């Protein structure tokens, strides 16, 4: 339908030469011109810059990206660096906890919200507003709340619990949980909204049938409703997962990687080596590893979403 070549006023001026190549080019010319920013973004940024980064991860570039080709040296060095290994372990630990808890709490809250409760919109507003805020704001507020002397710990001690400890932010063993509290505060509401939309999409008949069969409510949720929300769940996992790989702002604001290097994350490793560490090759190798981890999340999703479509219909 859109294949018919359109002659707009501007186009009409130049005389059309009957040539196949020219014809293909002229076809839909305004649309092609309009799509130029998108095409340029795809080619230059998403494809070009990514290839550039992968290429320079194989060089020994220091302050400037002009190094010579060194094969996998940067990767060898990367995996021999304790800061990188700690970053990866941190991200995996935080990521696993964050993904599971966001999904579980999001689903739980969505189920509670779906019980035809009063003040539903008030509860939803309260749960979602952190999502509107910057990670920097989130990080700084929780940094203040978790301040060992003046924050929650101090307040509870003043109230009489002399041994109350909530020093997670300055405790290398617990700092990831501090990140988790802030991260959940920011992201659970969004997950809840997604899940609630999924729940509302489940046919009322399913519920009636389950009730007739005498299946307990919790069982219906887990065995019937949850599998029916597969699409929403996959979307949530992909969004939360790719958000976790990007985790950066929150760490910068809440702990800045500390205490020591106990809350460093890969994204921060890349930025630090890129701009203050002056080791481009190393930063690029780390960035490539981030890319690979996103691919690992994305490829099964793409397969499920697009590969399986033929079979389902």
């Amino acid at each position, binding site marked *: 339908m*859109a294949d*018919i070549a359109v002659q*707009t*006023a501007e186009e009409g001026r130049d005389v059309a030469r009957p040539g196949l190549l020219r014809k*293909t080019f002229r076809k*839909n010319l*305004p649309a092609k011109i*309009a*799509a130029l*920013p*998108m*095409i340029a*973004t*795809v080619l*230059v*940024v*998403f494809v070009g*810059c990514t290839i*550039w*980064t992968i290429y320079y991860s194989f060089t020994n570039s220091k302050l400037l990206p002009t190094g010579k080709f060194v094969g996998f040296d940067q990767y060898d060095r990367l995996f021999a660096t304790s800061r990188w290994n700690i970053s990866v372990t941190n991200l995996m630990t935080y990521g696993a906890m964050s993904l599971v808890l966001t999904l579980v709490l999001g689903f739980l809250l969505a189920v509670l*919200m779906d019980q035809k*409760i009063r003040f539903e919109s008030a509860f939803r*507003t*309260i749960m*979602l*507003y*952190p999502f*509107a*805020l*910057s990670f*920097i*704001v989130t990080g*700084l*507020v929780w*940094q*203040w709340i978790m301040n060992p002397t*003046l924050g929650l710990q*101090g*307040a509870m001690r003043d109230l009489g619990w002399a041994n109350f400890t909530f020093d997670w932010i300055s405790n290398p063993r617990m700092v990831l949980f501090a990140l988790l509290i802030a991260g959940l*505060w920011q992201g659970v*509401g*969004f997950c809840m*909204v997604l899940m609630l939309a999924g729940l509302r999409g489940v046919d009322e008949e399913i519920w009636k049938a389950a009730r007739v069969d005498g299946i307990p409510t919790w069982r219906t949720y887990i065995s019937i409703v949850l599998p029916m929300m597969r699409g929403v769940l996959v979307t*949530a996992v992909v969004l939360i997962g*790719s958000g976790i*790989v*990007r985790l*950066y*702002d929150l760490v*910068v*604001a809440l702990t800045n990687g500390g205490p020591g290097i106990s809350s460093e994350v890969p994204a921060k490793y890349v*930025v630090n080596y*890129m701009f203050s560490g002056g080791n481009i090759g190393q930063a690029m190798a*780390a*960035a*490539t590893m*981030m*890319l690979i981890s*996103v691919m690992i999340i*994305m490829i099964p999703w793409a397969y499920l979403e697009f590969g399986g479509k033929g079979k389902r219909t």
Partner: protein
Amino acid sequence: MSTTATMTGAAPVSSTEPRGPKPKPFFTPKKIMLYTTLVFFALYFLFPLYVMVSTSFKTMPEIRFGSIFALPNQINFDAWVSAWTSACTGLTCNGLSPGFWNSVKITVPSTIVSIFIAAINGYALVNWRFKGSEIFFSILIFGSFIPYQVMLYPLVMITRELGIFGKLEAVILIHTIFGMPILTLLFRNYFASLPQELFKAARVDGAGFWRIFFEIMLPMSLPIFVVALILQITGIWNDFLFGAVFAGTHNQPMTVQLNNIVNSAQGTPEYNVNMAATVLTGLVPLIVYFVSGKLFVRGVAAGAVKG
């Protein structure tokens, strides 16, 4: 009170209380559990907001000797004034106001430009497909999942070559680029849902690419424009990474300035000023959130759902 009355042997007060069949049992154990859980979570979500706002109104002695739970003795705006005009961000001590205006100067053009480009892209993708258009679109959507760190350094080099690195233009360009995938997706899905007959009729009447866009598609797409507007304003305002990397020291947006104010380790931190600065930075997205209400939820959901 009634139990103590019976225990002391006085007349049973409880019998005089109004009794009768309740209209419908509202306080069933299940309901109590339900609302207790919800209120518990609501407190978790509200607590930081309360702490932020109440701390910002306190004086420093009050913070040091008081509790984080306590309400301020009296509303004191000093911290707010200081956060806005004189708090130190790195080398300069002009408060957050320059950052606020930088954020405005970044958010307004990048929101407008990215929405406009995305609207045209979405329209072209639905009504004027050409060879390869769907492939470009697929790469665009996949590209949006690539961590920014992967593309950051080459983009620094490109903006440096263009002579805009360290200027507001660079930040605007970067936001326009990275806003494109999600917005194009939004507009593509919206235009695909409009009746195709409309487009065909306009074609028959001889209208071209731009005329159909400006005279038919644009007037019909107000709802999706509002959703895109909400997504972009909150997203760009809240950005930290691009502002920190591309804006240079003189054009820092508000989030970067805020982080500098709080996390620069010079002297005793003024917690009340820090919290006032935090509230100030969060104010714009919060206003957008509360004013837009259900539209924000729709925007978030639309941004999340893949086409």
